[in-house]
């Protein structure tokens, strides 16, 4: 399986993602934002970080990078594209997934483990995951997902919500929502469910010595589903 991780100026989880993908069997290539063409890939990842310093709206500058046209074409033709954290913000800016990401409700950067409930398994990302709840890790300042009521109805009707913040038993309540996201949304799909944007970082959960191992489960499952 071939994957590509895009490095934007200010990306800082690109190496971590490279390490994770290789660990679970992907042949990964790092791709520079100013390149025009994507290498042949089964998976494209937009990693976390602070592309262009997040000085304009998070992700908006990166969404206009040269490479993004190829990424958009790839996604529109059904290619698997995953945006993590800042990558999710970039996806939102490209319009590949609906909604926006606002500043966290309590106006503070937050770095901690969270639980998320898998809301849909009819997709390459979560198909065959036995668990209903995963322990992931978040580290962001702008992860407060928001969309209009009409959009919300549409994404709910299409089962586009991928994961929601919850407790370890899968209970979805306000108190388990770390950033004020509407409906506790932590990640969403595009209509075709080939594009996934999510705030949590599975690449930081790939080792028992780190924050946990549910990231390993996620990547192992993903590569199997793509085979």
């Amino acid at each position: 399986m071939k994957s590509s991780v895009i490095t934007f100026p200010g990306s800082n989880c690109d190496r971590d993602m490279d390490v994770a993908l290789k660990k679970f069997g992907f042949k990964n290539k790092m791709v520079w934002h100013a390149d025009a063409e994507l290498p042949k890939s089964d998976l494209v990842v937009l990693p976390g970080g602070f592309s262009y310093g997040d000085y304009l709206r998070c992700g908006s500058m990166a969404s206009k990078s040269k490479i993004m046209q190829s990424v958009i074409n790839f996604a529109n033709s059904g290619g698997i594209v995953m945006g993590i954290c800042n990558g999710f913000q970039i996806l939102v800016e490209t319009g590949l997934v609906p909604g926006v990401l606002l500043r966290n409700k309590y106006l503070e950067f937050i770095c901690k483990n969270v639980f998320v409930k898998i809301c849909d398994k009819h997709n390459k990302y979560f198909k065959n995951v036995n668990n209903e709840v995963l322990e992931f890790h978040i580290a962001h300042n702008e992860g407060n997902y928001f969309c209009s009521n009409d959009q919300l109805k549409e994404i709910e009707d299409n089962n586009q919500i991928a994961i929601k913040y919850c407790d370890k038993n899968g209970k979805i309540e306000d108190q388990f929502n770390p950033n004020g996201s509407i409906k506790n949304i932590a990640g969403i799909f595009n209509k075709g469910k080939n594009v996934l944007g999510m705030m949590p970082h599975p690449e930081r959960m790939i080792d028992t010595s780190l924050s946990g191992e549910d990231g390993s489960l996620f990547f192992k499952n993903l590569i199997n589903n793509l085979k």
Partner: protein
Amino acid sequence: MIVNERVAIDHGLKKDEYSKICELLKRTPNITELGIFSAMWNEHCSYKSSKLHLKKLPTKGKKVIQGPGENAGVIDIEDNDAIVFKIESHNHPSFIEPYQGAATGVGGIMRDVFTMGARPIANLNSIHFGSPQHKKTKNLLRGVVHGIGGYGNCMGVPTIAGQTSFDSSYNGNILVNAMTLGLVKKDKIFYSKAAGLNKPVIYVGSKTGRDGIHGASMASASFDEKIEEKKPTVQVGDPFTEKLLLEACLELMAGDSIIAIQDMGAAGLTSSSIEMASKGNLGIEINLNKVPCRETKMTPYEIMLSESQERMLIILENGKEERAKKIFDKWNLDFAVIGKTTGSKKIEIYFDKERVADIPINTLVENSPMYDRKWKKAKLPKKNRIKKEDIKHLKIIDVLKKILANPNVCSKEWIWQQYDHTVMGDTIQKPGGDAGVVRVHGTNKAIAASVDSSAVYCWAHPLTGGKQVVCESFRNLISVGAKPIAITNCLNFGSPENEENMGEFVECVQGIGEASEYLKFPVVSGNVSFYNQTKDEGIKPTPAIGGVGLIKDYKNMITMEFKEVGNLVLVIGKTEGHIDQSLFARNILDEKNGPPPEVNLFNEKNNGETLLKLIDNNLIKSAHDVSLGGIITAVAKMSIKGKKGINIIKPKYLINEVEYFFAEDQGRYILEINRKDFKKVTDILNKNAVHFDELGTITENELYINDKTKVTIDELSTSNKSWLNKFMS
């Protein structure tokens, strides 16, 4: 502008310093030259009051590759790997403008580390605020935490440990000390020593603006009621540019084009160019018209003294300019050849084809002032005797809850949750333990780091306090299973012109020196921050010690949370019952006098090394050093983190319960061991003559004392976690 004595004094120079300048130059300096002298001769850059004493610190050791004098210290961690690290203060700017002050402090220290070719792998910080009741404290704390997070998070370097304290002596002068560790190959370390004639001098990074002009001079003076006017002297940080600068520099460093490199920190272009030339015993010629400027009509004076951030000065091999420029173009950073090295041993500055400064380098560096300031020796205060009637009404559990909720003991989760502590994917011990630990990427090795200070002990008796801080750092590293290697120090003090403050400095440094010599824990880098005072009131002396240690196999790392019900808990190190200057004495008995706990270096070393032996033999399940709040506070924290209880039986010593549980005697650790290993453990302890007490057994979820008094761990946890959240909400 005409330069005279009055102008010199406005620049923070003393009368006799100004006459010395005129004498050295054999003429009156022009304004640009005066600016350069004032920047190089201020306390911050010249160490004029501290040099004499810093010389006494032990700085060498088998593992030391580079000691003080470079951008940062470097230690050997085997297999051709080395760790570059340093701590630095950014106190004055952070009080004036907490967000930018703290942010640029973090940015500055990371630059010091990657200047040497190392990729930063961990950040730490030691931050100290005024009393929680003081009107500025809350906003300063919020601003500083946001600033540290804002910069470090954007850079993608994890913040893995730190220390926060509150004390009214910081009401008018907070402390913000930032520390960075970087990883480098031993044969790819870069230094700041220029070499060779006619080598191009390159400016890279951000453009130069009018921010931070005279920042270093500001940091060399006390505050008064006009501090708000000093806001323009605070630099503004741009972590995004620094991230690009980091990647571009490391890319250039992979080749062989660099002769020397130096970041532009305090006193900007002035000190970076002069230091490089001075170390290489060369001259340097700079054309200021070539310097990329952010603003128009900047004068030579402003360009030379600007402290705009995210800039580097590089001396390249001839003919490598094109290749280097390509790299910086790729990362969208300015790149300009601004001058060359010369044999004149002078700094010569040109602007609009005119020579605007012409100063022999030795007058700025070797001939800079050095003072043997007057200082007063501190007496060891008399011990207090605890009166029975003062303590008889106290209930241990109530006192414990109060101590756990004390601002200096309580959980700092509110702070460290705002720092990205997991980016880079190698953080195996997060903030909240004895030390932060990161793996050396792609290996089995791990690096432990902690930062400590004990201002109260240093204030009560500077010599003992200085020793104690080094020992505490030693203990924190050992508690996670790391072998301590070296330290960096950030020496925060009041005015050196005040005999008492100077005495505190001299004796703390002496204490640090004695302990680091004895423990073979040398000082490889550091920074001095004087004039931490508003008007006449100085801070409590606060030397902060950043310690670094190595864990050969990260799987043997130890954490502090209790692991298993039924396991035995031991205390190693003797409890004599020293209550003076303890948190208990100061906050429960309201007794602020008396000596700090005595430091016995033999016991420190012996207890620590013996614990490392136990860890090497896989006999330790969890460990934690005993510090503020004594044995029971240490045990309670292990219980809270492990969500397990303990049944404590006080050993039948002569001292009373209160003294046993709350004393802050040094050299002690709490250990959790498996019951079946008891004989093996005690054999090793006895063989090494280490005193130990059997303290109790781990239970489900309550803390019992002598089978009677009890409290749930949830209740203790609430006491520990709620104070800071409530304070900040």
